[in-house]
């Protein structure tokens, strides 16, 4: 078994949604999710009831959307810590700007997206053009974004508009609307990455920037794009949270940073960059969210809930990152590549 992240070998020749061979990471995350669902049915059937799913799926959708954003950055060997500030800014702009006036909502959404675009551009320029370390650059931008959060909200929550509440928190055909947003984000990201020239180049640049440059690709432009699109996705997530939670706090993004990285890794994308797995990332979001619902539903003490989640995450991540049967030579190439990226 070789669950190495970023490995491309095909598991089978079944035609997938995008007519590609199924990746091992996809199979792993789907199997883990099925096992989790079975465990839920046996030990905490209430967590699989319609009511529970309708209540928890919106949160899974939000994790999926921020996960897709983080995925794009991770594919370029980067890391986006400004996610927390960005989501929080999306939340406060969407709630404070309209102050419960439906008519102002669309303007608020536009303002939120312009902030996100500016933040993404800043991140991208710092990382790709000025060659700053992604962690440092995005940490700085995160502080800037939080300054924006305080400027807009003063750190105080505001109640969301009814319109946004209906759009983000409502249901269509029995499914929470936020799920459709997540699916749309997934479709767009998948299509762009896997079916367009830009997307194919994007993955190539992430896999090996040096080789990509040698073959005449605009490495910096692709890296910059990753940060911009990531921010736009965080912004969507922030606006959704503003609608799902009636009175969101000004720090709602903080609790999403770790899950966003976790679902990217669980989805099988290498933290060193390269090929991305959007569908696996979205399924991993469901997995992670369902795991916390399971822990809540079995009714164990809070400490045990945290331990259950940590164990499952540790298990999931080790399934990919430890090379159970990996050869020494492959390990070296991976390390060399790490040097190159640095």
């Amino acid at each position, binding site marked *: 078994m070789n669950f190495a992240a970023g490995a491309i070998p095909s598991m089978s020749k079944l035609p997938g949604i995008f007519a590609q061979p199924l990746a091992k990471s996809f199979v792993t995350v789907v199997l883990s999710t099925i096992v989790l669902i079975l465990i839920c049915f046996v030990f905490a059937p209430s967590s699989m009831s319609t009511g*529970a799913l309708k*209540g928890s799926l919106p949160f899974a959708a939000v994790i999926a959307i921020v996960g897709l954003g983080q995925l794009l950055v991770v594919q370029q060997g980067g890391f986006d810590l400004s996610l927390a500030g960005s989501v929080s800014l999306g939340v406060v702009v969407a709630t*404070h700007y309209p102050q419960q006036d439906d008519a102002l909502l669309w303007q608020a959404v536009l303002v939120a997206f312009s902030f996100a675009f500016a933040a993404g551009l800043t991140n991208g320029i710092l990382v790709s053009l000025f060659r700053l370390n992604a962690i440092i650059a995005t940490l700085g931008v995160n502080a800037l974004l939080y300054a924006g959060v305080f400027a807009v909200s*003063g750190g105080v*929550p505001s109640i969301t508009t009814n319109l946004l509440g209906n759009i983000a928190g409502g249901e269509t055909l029995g499914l929470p609307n936020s799920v459709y947003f997540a699916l749309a984000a997934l479709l767009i990201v998948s299509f762009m990455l896997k079916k367009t020239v830009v997307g194919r180049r994007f993955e190539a640049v992430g896999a090996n920037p040096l080789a990509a440059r040698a073959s005449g690709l605009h490495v910096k432009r692709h890296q910059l794009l990753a940060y911009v699109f990531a921010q736009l996705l965080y912004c969507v997530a922030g606006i959704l949270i503003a609608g799902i939670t009636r*009175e969101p*706090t000004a720090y709602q993004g903080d609790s999403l940073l770790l899950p966003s990285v976790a679902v990217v890794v669980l989805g099988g994308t290498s933290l060193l960059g390269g090929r991305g797995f959007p569908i696996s990332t979205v399924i991993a979001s469901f997995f992670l969210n369902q795991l916390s619902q399971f822990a809540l539903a079995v009714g164990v003490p809070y400490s045990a809930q945290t331990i259950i989640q940590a164990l499952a995450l540790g298990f999931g991540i080790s399934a990919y990152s430890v090379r159970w049967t990996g050869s020494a030579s492959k390990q070296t190439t991976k390390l060399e590549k790490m040097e190159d990226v640095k």
Partner: protein
Amino acid sequence: MTFKILKLAAATAVLALGSANAALAEVPSWCGPKKATIALLDGYGGNSWRQVTTASGKQTAELCPSITKYEYADGQGDTQKAISDIKGMAAKGVDALVVFGDAGPAVLPAITSVFKAGKVIVPYRVNVGGKEGENYTKFIGSSFVDDGASWGNWIKGVLPKGGNVLFLSGPAGNSQGLDELKGLKSVLGAEYKFLNAEPFDVTNWDPALTQKVLTAEIAKNDKIDVIVSDFGPSLVGALPLFNKSGRSIPALATSDGNSLGCFWTDNQNAQNKDFKLFTVATGNDNVRLAVQWAVAKATGGKDPEAQIFKAPAFEDSTKGKVQCRKDLPGAIYLSSELPAEDQAKAVGK
């Protein structure tokens, strides 16, 4: 002309004297003659409750003319910052400090060092450990046990034969939740079954987490008769989940908030026949008593009589008293002594 000016001057003098008399008459007994400065130190100032509380503290300090300056610092949920704020204010020469020690005993060493340096320091609401006269001047707690008992008594009235109770509080192990549980258990017998994990379901007082927790509990329990929560407004986002699964919102024993009062008012229909509401005052005025004590000690005034803040019962829908001000933000607390309009200003609308 001269006569007119004289008349005006006389009138002004009378007015000035009169208002000076009035001001003198209004000086409360806890305000002594010694000049002093005072600071309010928050461990975490990022919600409307804290903003209203800060404004209330300021208003109380302003009642005393001997107070020359009122300062404020926000620890932003960072224990390190809270500690350096406390020490920094003392180093700046502030005479009296009123501290909301969110981090609990972690801020006690800083409080003790300030006390030893001869300052007046009054921690309030959150128990920081330590002893009066040894670690700080005075601790002004809030009687959360009484809150729990008030809820318990109301629940007994609404559900005399017992029922299923779901109790939600903030971060794991917070002393407020534990005290409230003590109060609840002192009133409610074994016929009232607690559905939550021991001692309470953890929500961190975060509306998103509250929503997730409530989702799981609603799915797990077919019959929830009453929800008890110490932060009522954080439930508002999650309560419609009951209707989504075709059930009535159950009875609610909690603390007040304008958004909650309005939510109750908007949801009085046939589907929600069990939705009764009881609130205790959310306790913004706890800070007033703490400021009064700090000012009394720093200016040489008379100590206030109350040693502990008792939140009065505020709304009871079974007696027809639920307040909602639709024209004002949801994030204000009508139980607070601070006028609703001033609160709206404090929370930024």
